[in-house]
C-alpha cells in the first residue's frame, strides 16, 4: 500500500471494478428506459401519433361556390356575379417592399397612409401569404397595375366574385342584399351551417332563399409545411354553384312602375290577378344594394339607417296603411252577402252622419243626396258606408276582411312581411283593455280607425274580385333551377280560398268598380282609357284623425307628415283581367288625382307593350 502513494499510475484499478460493474447495470437500465419509452411512443401510441402527424401536414382549404343568379320572369338576369379586383402583395416575392409600395402610390393605385408601418408589417413570418393592399379597385386602376407589372414584383391581383345588382335601387327591396355573416347571426340556431367569413343574404330574396342561392363549398386537400405553405394538392372537390332563382317579376314593368312613381314615396305593386304572381313591386324611397358589396361604408350605413323615411323597408309588405275608401269594396261585399242590402238599397247623404254624440262627415260636404250601392261606390260616398258599417257591426266586417286575406300575412316569399290589423271587439278589449265604441265601427267602415293593411294584401284582395273570387297566395318566385337548368323546385300558383260571394254579388261589385273609372262622376276618371277597360277604386287615407269640426285646416297648412295617403287599386281589362295594380302615394293627398295617374301609366304601358309583343309573335308566326 505504501507504494501506491509513491508515484503516478501505480494503482491497480481493480478496487473500482465492483463500482464499474454496478454502473454498467445502471447504464443498461438507462438504455432499457429509453427503449421502453420508444416502445410506448412508437408501437403503443404509434397509430394516434401518426394520425396527429397527418393532421399536421394535411389541410383542407375551402373553395367557395358562386352564388346563384336571380332572374326575372322572362329570363333576364337581375343579380349577377361580377369579379371584383383586389391588389395584394406577396412579401417574399419582392426584395424591396417599400419601393414597390412607393411605386403603387405613384401610380395612385394605393393610397399612401401608413406606408412605412405597412412595410414593417409585411415582414411576416409567413412571407408567402399575400397581404391585401387595396380592395375592389376599378378597371382603370386594374389596367394600370397590369401594364406596370414588370415594375411591381410581388404584386398580384386577386379576383373576388361580388354580387352585381343590375337594376340597382329599382328592385332593392325584392332582391335584398348580401353581406358577411355577423357574429350575432352565427349565434342563432338557424345559422348553424354558416361559419365566420361566409357571405349570406341579409334581406329580400337573397335572405329568404339563401339556402338555395349559397351553393356548396368545395375543398382542396393540400399538403402544407410547418409555415402553412402549400406544397402539393392531394385531392379536390369542386364547389357546387348556388341555384338560380326565377322570379315572377317583369323587369321592364318594374322599371316602368318605378319611373311612373318618380318624385313620390310609397308603393306600387302589380299582380296577375289570375294566379297571384307579382309582376312588379316598387317601394320608395329605395337604396342601392350594390353599396353593400364587400361591406358597406360607415357613412353610407348611417345615411341609410338614420333616414326617417326608412328606405330599407319594403313598404309593399312591411308598410301598414289605413286602406281608406278602397276598403269600401269589402264593406259592400259583406253587406250584400249577408243579405242586409240589395244593390238597390238607398241611403240619403246630406254630408254628415251622426253616431252617438259624434258627427262623421262625408268627403263631399254638400252630400250626395239619395244614393244606391253602385253610386255609393262610384262616387265613394262615405255616409252610405257609415250606414252599412252600422248594419254589419265591426265583427262581421272583420270576418269578411279576413276572407279577403286582410289581417294576416299573405305568405309571400320575402322576409319581414307584416300582417296588418283587422280590429274586432275582442281584440280591443284584449289589447287596449277598453270596450269597443260604436263610432269606431263607423271609422272602420270607410277604412280608417284601427284598420291597417299592407299594400300587397290590398292588391291581393282586389285581385280576388278581379278573377271572380279566388284568393291566391301572392307568388314572387316562379322556380328554382340549377345552374345547368335542372328544375329544383317549382312554385305553382296556390289558391288559398274561394270567396263565399255569389257570382251575382261579385258582378255587382265589379260593375261598380268599372263605374269608378268610366262613369262621369267616378272618382277614378284619371284612368278612363279609350278602351274603357279599367276598373278600380280610389282611396284617401287619413294619417291622423283630424278634429271633426275644425274646418279651417286647409290642406296646404298641414305638415307633410300629417298629409293624407293617396291610394288607388285597379285591374284591367274588365273581362278576365290580366293585371291588378295598387298605388299608394304616402302623404300624396287625394287618391283620384295623385295615385290614379301613376296607375294609368303602368296600365297604358302594359297594354301597349303587350300589343308590341303580340305583333312580334305574329311576325314570327
Amino acid at each position, binding site marked *: 500500500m505504501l507504494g*501506491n502513494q509513491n508515484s503516478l499510475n501505480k494503482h491497480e484499478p481493480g478496487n473500482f471494478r465492483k463500482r*464499474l460493474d454496478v454502473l454498467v447495470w445502471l447504464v443498461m437500465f438507462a438504455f432499457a428506459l429509453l*427503449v421502453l*419509452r420508444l416502445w410506448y411512443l412508437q408501437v403503443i401510441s404509434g397509430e394516434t401519433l401518426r394520425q396527429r402527424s*397527418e393532421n399536421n401536414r394535411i389541410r383542407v382549404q375551402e373553395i367557395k361556390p358562386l352564388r346563384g343568379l336571380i332572374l326575372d320572369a322572362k329570363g333576364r338576369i337581375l343579380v349577377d356575379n361580377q369579379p371584383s379586383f383586389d391588389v395584394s402583395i406577396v412579401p417574399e416575392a419582392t426584395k424591396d417592399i417599400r419601393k414597390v409600395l412607393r411605386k403603387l402610390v405613384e401610380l395612385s393605385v394605393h393610397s399612401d397612409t401608413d406606408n412605412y408601418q405597412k412595410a414593417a408589417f409585411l415582414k411576416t413570418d409567413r412571407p408567402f401569404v399575400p397581404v391585401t393592399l387595396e380592395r375592389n379597385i376599378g378597371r382603370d386602376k386594374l389596367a394600370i397595375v397590369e401594364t406596370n407589372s414588370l415594375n411591381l414584383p410581388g404584386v398580384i391581383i386577386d379576383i373576388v366574385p361580388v354580387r352585381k345588382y343590375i337594376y340597382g335601387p329599382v328592385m332593392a327591396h325584392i332582391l335584398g342584399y348580401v353581406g358577411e355573416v355577423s357574429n350575432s347571426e352565427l349565434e342563432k340556431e338557424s345559422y348553424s351551417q354558416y361559419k365566420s367569413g361566409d357571405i349570406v343574404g341579409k334581406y329580400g330574396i337573397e335572405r329568404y332563399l339563401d339556402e338555395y342561392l349559397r351553393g356548396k363549398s368545395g375543398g382542396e386537400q393540400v399538403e402544407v409545411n410547418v409555415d402553412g405553405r402549400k406544397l402539393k394538392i392531394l385531392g379536390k372537390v369542386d364547389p357546387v354553384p348556388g341555384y338560380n332563382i326565377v322570379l315572377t317579376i317583369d323587369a321592364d314593368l318594374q322599371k316602368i312602375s318605378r319611373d311612373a312613381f318618380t318624385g313620390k314615396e310609397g308603393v306600387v305593386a302589380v299582380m296577375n290577378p289570375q294566379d297571384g304572381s307579382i309582376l312588379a313591386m316598387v317601394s320608395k324611397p329605395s337604396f342601392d344594394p350594390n353599396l353593400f358589396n364587400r361591406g358597406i361604408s360607415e357613412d353610407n350605413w348611417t345615411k341609410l339607417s338614420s333616414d326617417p323615411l326608412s328606405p330599407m323597408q319594403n313598404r309593399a309588405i312591411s308598410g301598414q296603411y289605413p286602406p281608406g275608401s278602397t276598403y269600401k269594396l269589402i264593406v259592400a261585399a259583406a253587406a250584400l252577402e249577408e243579405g242586409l242590402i240589395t244593390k238597390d238599397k238607398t241611403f240619403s247623404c246630406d254630408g254628415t252622419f251622426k253616431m252617438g254624440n259624434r258627427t262623421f262627415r262625408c268627403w263631399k260636404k254638400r252630400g250626395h243626396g239619395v244614393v244606391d250601392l253602385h253610386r255609393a261606390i262610384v262616387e265613394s260616398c262615405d255616409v252610405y258606408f257609415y250606414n252599412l258599417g252600422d248594419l254589419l257591426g265591426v265583427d262581421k266586417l272583420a270576418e269578411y276582411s279576413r276572407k279577403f286575406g286582410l289581417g294576416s300575412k299573405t305568405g309571400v316569399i320575402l322576409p319581414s312581411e307584416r300582417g296588418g290589423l283587422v280590429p274586432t271587439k275582442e281584440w280591443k278589449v284584449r289589447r287596449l283593455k277598453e270596450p269597443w265604441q260604436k263610432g269606431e265601427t263607423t271609422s272602420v267602415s270607410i277604412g280608417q280607425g284601427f284598420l291597417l293593411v299592407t299594400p300587397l294584401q290590398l292588391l291581393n284582395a282586389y285581385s280576388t274580385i278581379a278573377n271572380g273570387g279566388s284568393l291566391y297566395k301572392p307568388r314572387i318566385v316562379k322556380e328554382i333551377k340549377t345552374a345547368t337548368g335542372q328544375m329544383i323546385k317549382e312554385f305553382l300558383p296556390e289558391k288559398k280560398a274561394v270567396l263565399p260571394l255569389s257570382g251575382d254579388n261579385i258582378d255587382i261589385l265589379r260593375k261598380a268598380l268599372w263605374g269608378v273609372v268610366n262613369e262621369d262622376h267616378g272618382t277614378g276618371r284619371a284612368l278612363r282609357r279609350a278602351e274603357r277597360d279599367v276598373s278600380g277604386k280610389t282611396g284617401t287615407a287619413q294619417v291622423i284623425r283630424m278634429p271633426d269640426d275644425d274646418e279651417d285646416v286647409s290642406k296646404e297648412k298641414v305638415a307633410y307628415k300629417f298629409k293624407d295617403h293617396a291610394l288607388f287599386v285597379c285591374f284591367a281589362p274588365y273581362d278576365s283581367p290580366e293585371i291588378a295594380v295598387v298605388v299608394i302615394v304616402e302623404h300624396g293627398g287625394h287618391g283620384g288625382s295623385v295615385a290614379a295617374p301613376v296607375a294609368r301609366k303602368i296600365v297604358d304601358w302594359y297594354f301597349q307593350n303587350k300589343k308590341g309583343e303580340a305583333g312580334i309573335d305574329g311576325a314570327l308566326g
Partner: protein
Amino acid sequence: MKIDRRLFVNFDWVLPTLVLSICCIGLMNLYSVGYNLPDTTSTPSYVRQAYWIFIGLVMMLVVLSVDYHFIVRYAYVLYAASVLLLFVVLLHGKVAQGSQRWLMLWGFSFQPSELIKLTVIIVLARFFGDKNVTQEWGLKNLAAPLFILLLPSLLIVIQPDLGTTLFLGILFFSIIILFRIKRRLIKCFAVSGVILIPLGWFFIQDYQRKRILTFLNPEMDPLGSGYHIIQSMIAIGSGGLLGKGYLKGTQSQLKFLPEQQTDFVFSVFAEEWGFLGVLILIFLFLALILWGFKIARRSRDMSGMLIAYGVTVYIFWGIFINIGMVLGILPVVGIPLPFLSYGGSSMVVLMMGVGLLMNVSMRRFVFQP
C-alpha cells in the same frame, strides 16, 4: 520514440468500427434532414459534417498516437489552455441566439465549452490518479477538484449556456462516485441541492423556466414552448414499428420538427426508420458504451481507468440526455446527440475522446519505463 509492436497487436478495432458505423448513420440522417431544404448555395450540412468527421479522425489519430500518460502529465497545462479559451470566448466570441459560445478560428467556428469537457476528464484523471484509493473523501480534499469543475462552469454559465454547465456537473459527479465519499459530504451535497434548485429557479432565464414547466406538461402551451417536444414526440411516434421510410418523414421533411440538424436529429431518424431502426442505433450506442466500460475495467492503471471511464460517461450522458429529451422524459436542454447531431466542435471533441479511449485500450499491456 520507439514504437512498440504491441501497440499494433492491441490496436482496438471494435471502437472505431462502432463509431464510424454510428457516424455513417448520422451522415445518412443529415442527408435526409437537408433533403427538402431550399437549395442554398452553401455546402449541405451532411457534406460539412463529413469534413468534420474527417478532421475528427485525424485528431483521433493524433490523440491516440501520444501515450496517455504523457497527456496526463500535462493535464494542468491542457486545462489552463482550455480555460483560457473560455475567457477568450467571453471577450471575443461570436454571439448567436443570445449566447456567446463560439470562437472563430480560421473561418471555422468552434466551441471551447465542448473541449473543456474532455480536459476536465483528463485533469480529474491526473488529480485522482495518484491518490490513495481507499481513502475517504471529504470537503477538504475535494476542494481542488471542485475548483477544477467550478471555474469553467462559471465561465460557461455566463455565456450563458446552462445545458453545458449542468452537463459538466453531471460528468463531475459521475466521476467522483467512483470514490468513497464521506457521508457528511453526501448529505452536504444533498442539502445544498435542495436549497439551490428553488434558488436557481429565480436565476434561470424565462425561457428556461418555461422549458421546465412544459416538460412537466407539454400540452400546457402546445404552440409555444411545448411545441418542440410535442412535435418531436409526434415525429417519433408516427414512425411506428417500421418507420415512414427514408426521406419520407413528413414531420421532418415538412419542417414541423424544430432543430432537426442538432438537438432533434434523433426524432428525424426515429420517424423514418421506426422502432426497429432505432433499436439498431440504440444497440450500437449501447455497444459503444459497454466497450468503453470494458476498456476502463481492464485499463492498467488508475489514470487510464479514469480517462476511459470519464470519456465513456461523457458519451453516455450525451446519448441519454438527448434521447431522453426528444422522447419527452427529460426537459429540453441543448445537448447534442453524440455522432449524430450536426456540429463540428462536438464531433471533433468526441473523436478526440474516442482517441483517448483507444489510447488507453491499446496501452493496457505497455509498461512504463
